[in-house]
């Protein structure tokens, strides 16, 4: 069958997957449309609720890239600080690492026989 990919422990077929997704999606849309529709349009119920704070101006509400995953990097500070220090941008370090790794691989290949 076209699109059938054997992986050795199972199979994968993107077309079957797409059909399932479409059927599930149609079901979701169907159930969603059956839901509650008694709210009043164009009143306060339409507006976003930000814990009681006033809604920001649209232009100001954009979150720039540095704020995203701030917590992730803050929590992994101990991992990231050495890693950033490792990327010095100094050409001497670049060549140094090549030589170090080459020597290591030479030793490994030489010892293993």
């Amino acid at each position, binding site marked *: 069958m076209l699109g059938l990919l054997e992986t050795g422990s199972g199979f994968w077929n993107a077309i079957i997957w797409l059909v399932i997704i479409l059927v599930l999606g149609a079901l979701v849309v169907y159930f969603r449309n059956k839901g509650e529709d008694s709210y009043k349009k164009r009143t306060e119920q339409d507006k976003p609720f930000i814990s009681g704070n006033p809604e920001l101006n649209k232009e100001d509400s954009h979150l720039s890239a540095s704020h995203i995953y701030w917590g992730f990097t803050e929590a992994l500070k101990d991992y990231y600080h050495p890693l*950033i220090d490792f990327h010095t*941008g100094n*050409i001497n370090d670049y060549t140094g690492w090549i030589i170090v790794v080459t020597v290591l691989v030479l030793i490994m290949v030489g010892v293993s026989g």
Partner: protein
Amino acid sequence: MISNFPYIAVIVFISLGIYTLIFNKNLIKIAIGICLIENGANLFLITLGYKKGAVAPIYTMAPAGQSMVLPTPQALTLTSIVIGLATTALILSVAMMIYKHYGTLDTDEVRRLRG
């Protein structure tokens, strides 16, 4: 023993080149370091084809009965020298551009790209 001397020279050339690349802070000197490694590699190739008492491998001009050195390493070395020339010219011109914009050739200063 004396026939091994070129190989020792190869090792000296390449070690000096690697030392320059790792410990020298000047971009021009790094270019010189690459030239040193290149010379080491070229000397290595040319030594492989050497034969004591042999003449240059020019087929039509060789005297009869005389052995010739291997021609292939010489062709390889020639190619590698030409490539080396292009590399050196390019690396020096890029270093010139760096000096124009950064005002320095110190590797500790030339690292706006990092992290």
